């Protein structure tokens, strides 16, 4: 199924461009994550939303804001990171952080206390592995030149359909 990157207008700003990943049906993992939070995690979701807005408009995607290197194997999906709630650390939102100026939002979900790593949770595994595959595809596309980063570093240029 074809997958494309789309700039997220509401969240992007002068500091960073925020992207979502859409399939042919218009589904994207970030929206699914937001819906799945429901009332139980509404406060945490709204805090995530505010922080993503702040990243786009005020501060950029500084790497210290994220839990880094959520990859399975060293060198594969190194750009995959997770936004998490503090201090509880009950939630994970997986992203691909290309730079301080470009961030791609994926999906995620609650991380139960007994879960040590995302590999132990089916929902988190699905979300993390999907973003690792997106990260690897983007890396390849940037290397082949069919996808590029604009001169000011703020956005992707080229064919944003990253999986045909």
């Amino acid at each position, binding site marked *: 199924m074809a997958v494309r990157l*789309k700039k997220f207008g509401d969240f992007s700003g002068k500091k960073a461009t925020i992207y979502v990943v859409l399939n042919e049906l218009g589904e994207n993992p970030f929206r699914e994550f937001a819906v799945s939070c429901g009332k139980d995690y509404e406060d945490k979701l709204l805090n995530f*939303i505010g*922080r993503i*807005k*702040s990243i786009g*408009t005020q*501060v950029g995607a*500084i790497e*210290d804001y994220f839990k880094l290197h959520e990859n399975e194997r060293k060198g594969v999906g190194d750009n995959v990171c997770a936004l998490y709630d503090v201090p509880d650390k009950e939630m994970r939102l997986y992203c691909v952080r290309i730079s301080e100026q470009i961030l791609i939002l994926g999906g995620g979900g609650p991380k139960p206390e007994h879960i040590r790593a995302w590999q132990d949770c089916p929902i988190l595994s699905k979300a993390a592995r999907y973003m690792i595959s997106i990260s690897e595809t983007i890396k390849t596309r940037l290397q082949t030149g069919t996808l590029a980063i604009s001169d000011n570093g703020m956005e992707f240029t080229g064919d944003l359909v990253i999986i045909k």
Partner: protein
Amino acid sequence: MAKKKHDEDVYQDDFLSSLLEASAPFQEEVDFKMKLAAKIIKAVRSKGWNNTVFAEKMEIASLSIITKWFSGTHNFESTTLNKIQNVLGIRLIDVEMPLAATNMTMQVILGGQREYKEYDELAQNTYILIGGYKTKAVAQC
């Protein structure tokens, strides 16, 4: 090399927009915490320090505390902020009273005479107090 821009590829979603509206009342507070963390992080990195070195300088045993500070979500105590700004040599909180709200009195000795000068910032006047009399100072060139 791909150059074509895709400005038409902007995603909008009513549900997510409604969440953004719901979080708007807290946005200023979120922005403040994120910017505060960013200022500390940039100052630490500009010194060439990693989190371990910064923790040592702050005399903190646990690296997880530094990670928490840098997450952009932490509520700092003023004593912690004061220590951070002293360690990093930056200003994070400004507790000085604005000059306009103060009257300054200076003791000066001119030609062996002890005088008191008082500067009223609000009135933009300098007064010289000699022998109990308050006299407006006039600049002479």
